[in-house]
């Protein structure tokens, strides 16, 4: 292997590259902030206090228009959006992030689809795993998540460990932030070009994407289609597949009641939305879902926790649905009004649209 000058030179080049990589990793570790950030600092859109805090996934994204909701109830609305996530994440946010907030929101609007809530361990794989809001030693979470299917052989287990090791390096641990920085910088540069060309869309993109909380793809989709919400995040995750499911369980044994209790303990009011899946809009109820919802309604009623029962709301017919269980623009407008009315009934904002 070392029998020729070219071969020796090649190995030296490889060695220098490796040493360079080690130096960068060590440097990144030294420069990294030693103090762990608090869990609440990982929130995307924390509440501004006194306002409405919507916490949810794509069903909320296609179901509630934050700006319209804010106008309807005359309150600030912040939207903590996590595409592709389920009840395990709402639990972790309520349990671990909420108590750390300096100021609690006036009311937290969150919800669930019964089909997924009955699978407490249900979540998707690594691209949006829930560990971000997890704290060590949370026995409730650990017990409920025992249904997670881990690798079923030593080879896969070793590969998973290797993956974890890689993601714990200083370089890889901030990969999402780095990609976002690159994408934001390139968008800002292209908006400058649009300004030079005098194209007015730059102002809209600055307001909604650069200063707002929407993605460029979402804004693009809404503009072109007249209101449809872009679900690229969901599609990307679906493309990876690997839904992890646990055993179905009773309502009282899942994450939903624990989330509601954690929110109640925080002192914030809450409104729990039980979503209406597409099959209900098509007039095909599932027995297990029906039972789960009945149990949920009874549980919340016993504790005087406000519920918005969209599940049985027949105004939401199939014409208001888009992709899967998601709503189209007309559906979103109606659901936003329904949420606003219910919040107003509960004393959170004005009641007149």
């Amino acid at each position, binding site marked *: 292997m070392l029998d020729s000058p*070219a071969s020796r030179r*090649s190995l030296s080049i*490889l060695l220098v590259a490796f040493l360079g990589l080690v130096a960068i990793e060590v440097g990144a570790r030294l420069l990294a902030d030693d103090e762990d950030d608090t869990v609440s600092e990982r929130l995307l859109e924390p509440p501004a206090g006194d306002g409405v805090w919507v916490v949810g996934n794509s069903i909320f994204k296609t179901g509630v228009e934050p700006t319209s909701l804010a106008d309807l109830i005359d309150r600030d609305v912040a939207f903590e959006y996590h595409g592709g996530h389920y009840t395990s994440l709402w639990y972790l946010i309520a349990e671990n992030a909420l108590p750390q907030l300096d100021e609690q929101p006036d009311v937290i609007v969150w919800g669930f689809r019964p089909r997924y809530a009955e699978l407490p361990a249900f979540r998707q794989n690594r691209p949006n795993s829930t560990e971000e809001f997890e704290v060590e030693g949370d026995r409730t979470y650990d017990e409920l998540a025992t249904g997670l299917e881990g690798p079923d052989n030593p*080879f896969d287990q070793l590969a998973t460990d290797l993956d974890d090791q890689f993601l714990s390096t200083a*370089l890889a641990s901030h990969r999402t932030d780095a990609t976002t920085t690159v994408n934001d910088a390139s968008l800002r540069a292209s*908006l400058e070009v649009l300004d030079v060309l005098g194209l007015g869309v730059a102002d809209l993109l600055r307001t909604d994407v650069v200063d707002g909380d929407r993605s460029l793809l979402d804004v693009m989709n809404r503009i072109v289609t007249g209101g449809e919400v872009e679900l690229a995040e969901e599609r990307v995750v679906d493309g990876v597949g690997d839904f992890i499911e646990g055993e179905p369980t009773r309502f009282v044994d899942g994450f939903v009641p624990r989330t509601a209790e954690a929110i109640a303990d925080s002192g914030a009011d809450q409104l729990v939305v039980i979503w209406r899946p597409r099959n209900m809009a098509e007039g095909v109820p599932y027995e297990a879902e029906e039972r789960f919802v009945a149990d949920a309604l009874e549980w919340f009623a016993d504790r005087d926790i406000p519920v918005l029962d969209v599940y049985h709301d027949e105004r939401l017919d199939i014409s208001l649905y888009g992709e899967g269980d998601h709503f189209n623009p007309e559906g979103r407008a109606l659901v936003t009004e329904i949420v606003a009315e219910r919040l107003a009934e509960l004393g959170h904002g004005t009641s007149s649209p």
Partner: protein
Amino acid sequence: MLFNSFAFVLFAVVVLLSYHLLRAPNQQNVLLLAASLFFYAYGDWKLLSLILLCALDGYVVAILLHRRPERSRPLLVVGIAVPLAVLGTFKYFDFFVDEVGRLTELVGLGSPDLALELALPVGISFYTFQTIGYVVDVHRGLIEPERDPLVFFLFVTFFPQLVAGPIERSTNLLPQIRRRRTVDGQDLLHGTYLIAQGFTKKIVIADNVKPIVDSIFAIEGASGPLILVGSIAFAIQIYGDFSGYTDIARGIARLLGFRLLLNFRRPYWSTNPAEFWNRWHITLSNWFRDYVYIPLGGNRAGRSRTLVNLMATMTLSGLWHGASANFVLWGAFHGTALIVHRVWSDRRPGKAPVVLGWVGTMLVVVIGWYMFRVTDGGQLIDGLSALVLDPAFGGLALATLGTVVPYLALMVAVDIVEWRVIDRADEIDPSWILSPVLTSLVVMIAVLGSDAGGEFIYFAF
């Protein structure tokens, strides 16, 4: 097993270490065959039967071709028919049943429900073509039949290139399997570099552009500028995805002491359609040239026949990519571009200005990628109409294009290093520039790599 998974990283490390601990080529081949079968069976072990059937067919038929030259024609038919039957059943049967059903429905005979709905086995288009190529090469006397089943089965199943190529030729890979292989410092450097380059193309470039492509192609009623930007982004994605796979395959093979065939040579630097096909998926282009175009008569039977042969070859090449009308259309579109280029070149032998040639070629390629990406006929027609007739949302399209620019720039940079350094590795001394470049690639993979890409696009073919 996906290259971009830690299961593969672990697999590759174990195989490489074990391989270099063994000294005898035969032992190394046993290890590589076992590893290749494990690699293929990792997703679904039942699919092993198909690849082994094709390999067995090629192995037996080639030996018989040599022993019974008087029966070469029927043997050749058998040698080709078995892999084609496997490919036809799993990949094309449902497509043709659907198309026939549409015709019978048109004439009022109803549509028979004969679809098999079989899952497409990964890599089927690649290993069947590789086997067919081998049988034809033996029939043509280009190569002696391989009598060692270990060597031949490894030729068909060699894991680095098994699921998405390069489609190896018997004349290149078989001799390498037979002989003792050595790995020196240059092999280590260039193998490692190719792997890093491949991962950069896949998980930094292709997978970060993927959400933009998916989103634009999901918009109903997208305007012409948006479709153009979506197609440009897809051009970047598919190049990063496919050539990234090839780079990783060639890099792994190099670390094992093998030299796989070149599959991409900066295709977007092409200044005419013919050059593009000499730079894009080179092993498939060469396969169709040698086993379809030339047997059809190539350019030896007059001008009109040459053009017909070109169109037939490109249309079949489109069909190879998938059992769907849009792939056929894509192949025919490129066939038309090649014909126009040939006729133009014949009439005006002087070279067209480079910039003009490049712009025209890229327009053909990008519009072609739109056809390739959209499988729904209605959406395809609407989109192609919008490209010409609907200039709306230009600003929005420009802003979206801006978000693709960093990945485009990275792709160009990677191509330049490949052009100046890697492709000349056998001519010049290893360059020290590779140290910082290699470090930068690995840093980018760690920092900017996307978790969300999933499979390689060409796994679907």
